[in-house]
């Protein structure tokens, strides 16, 4: 029931299979197809509150499947401006559309220079090859 394997060109990635879509001084965050596939169908999304602070490489929430729970590690630091309620209500949305409807949070960036330390698609593909 999940989506086909894919990794969009226009996103940034980290080693923990989280992605970021940078839009000016904001970014939308989520997890990649690989992460969603490894976990299996998601059954729960423990989301942060709007207004909460998020720090790079620190857990901002959790997603759960039947067999495992995974920390969501923020690729970038900032303040939460929106939480995707659709995923809270139907966590399997992440498996169906990890980069579109399955976005997790939108943050206002506190340190845009952090974007430079993220992986582009080619570098992330290297990470996947090593799994």
């Amino acid at each position: 029931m999940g989506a086909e394997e894919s990794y969009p060109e226009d996103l940034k990635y980290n080693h923990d299979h989280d992605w970021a879509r940078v839009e000016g001084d904001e970014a939308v965050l989520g997890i990649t197809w690989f992460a969603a596939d490894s976990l299996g169908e998601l059954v729960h999304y423990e989301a942060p509150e709007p207004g909460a602070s998020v720090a790079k490489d620190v857990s901002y929430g959790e997603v759960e499947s039947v067999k495992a729970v995974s920390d969501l590690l923020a690729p970038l630091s900032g303040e939460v401006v929106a939480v995707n309620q659709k995923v809270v209500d139907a966590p399997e949305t992440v498996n169906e559309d990890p980069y579109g409807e399955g976005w997790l949070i939108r943050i206002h960036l506190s340190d845009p220079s952090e974007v430079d330390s993220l992986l582009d698609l080619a570098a992330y593909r290297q990470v996947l090859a090593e799994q």
Partner: protein
Amino acid sequence: MKLIYEKSQPGRRASAIPRHEGLPAPEVPAELRRTEPPRLPEVPEFELVRHFTELSTRNFGVDTGFYPLGSCTMKYNPRINERLVGLPGFAQLHPHQEDEGAQGALELEWRLDQILREITGLDAVSLQPAAGSQGELTGLMLVRAYFEDRGESEQRRKVVIPDTAHGTNPASVTLSGYELTPVQTDARGNIDVEDLRAKVDEHTAALMLTNPSTLGLFDENIEELERIFHGAGALMYYDGANLNAVCGISRPGDMGFDIVHINLHKTFSQPHGGGGPGGGPVAVRGMLAPFLPVPVVVHRDDGSFGLDYDRPKSIGKVRGFTGPFGVFVRSYAFMRMYGPRLREMSEAAVLNANYVLARLKDVYELPYNRLCMHEFVLSARRLKHDHGVTALDVAKRLMDYGFHPPTIYFPLVVPEALMIEPTETETKETLDAFCDAMLAIAREAAEDQQLLKDAPHDRPVRRLDEVRAAKNPIVKYEFDRHPTPDEQ
């Protein structure tokens, strides 16, 4: 099958409470009174018995058949133990009875304590913890108390655990306020000593290790591990889950461990009861004895037995009273039926495991090419790669052959893991029948994958939808508005 609540009819009842004439009326202040009665089942006694009898037929125990769950030690639970634990002198003894009125119970606890010292090679015991994981937590509390007493607790914040550890180990570490330092396993299945050396220093409080490990392998570098940890001033904690392999052959105290917990419901035959009860006593080296939970059983000069509460350095209490006494009775009885022959128990357990390993290793993948101890891990990775059949499918198909499956997907370091522990209470014929079934399933994997995917075929239920259960948990009967399967 219906729930007991679905068989309930108003006005039916199994109980009868004696009445007496001329007693004061029962009074409860109005603001504290029950407003709605609890909707407990209303059934006559014979319906109750039929219901639970039917439920039992939908369950599989060691009494039913072979149960090779790795790391659980599903051995025979001697029936004499059930009779003995039911003796009124044990069953009806109140825990607050004065020591003079509980001499038999206290003596039993003391004797059990002495036997555990001999088996572990250590100096003092607490019988209090209710399960292995509570024993672990107790052990870590002892570690903390020890270092606090020495003024080193701020400095020592880390506990080292191998990546093959049973999940209770890291959970216990968190619950006792320590930080986890994971260490890798090498290609032989031992702790990677080079990885370890870099990670152990004056900030290390302890190692938590199961030996033999969850891979069923005895750590070949145990002497070096002892030098590294004690050299850094840290303690060594032994998870006794796998003691069935080495009883009377090698003792954790002699391996260098300072604290040990024993699983009475694994090695010493306390029945698993569908999930419990268990017993997780801890044994310690002398310098840790002052910190043990209160009370401690003592044998006085006049020959009497008592409970000592006067232990100022004790960590406190982890469980009520002296611990799960009924579990002590069974374990003590089991140990007395072996005496020094406990060694033969372990030898048989290890022989049985190696025999099954030898018969299966060519067809299933054996990740660590060594003799095993009382259990071993196979991988179904090749079956998955070649035929798309997983360890889960193998497990479900084994049910059709009348066996309980082994442990699957543990330890995490082995993909498509099948952890098999036959125990010593199995005949060679049973082992052969199990091996024949495993080999047949491997053949079926090549010829008829769907047969495995659809398994089990003959159990009370087929494969269950666990995703559905987790998404919208239904955790109790909802009486008038309980959802039907279509609605869920």
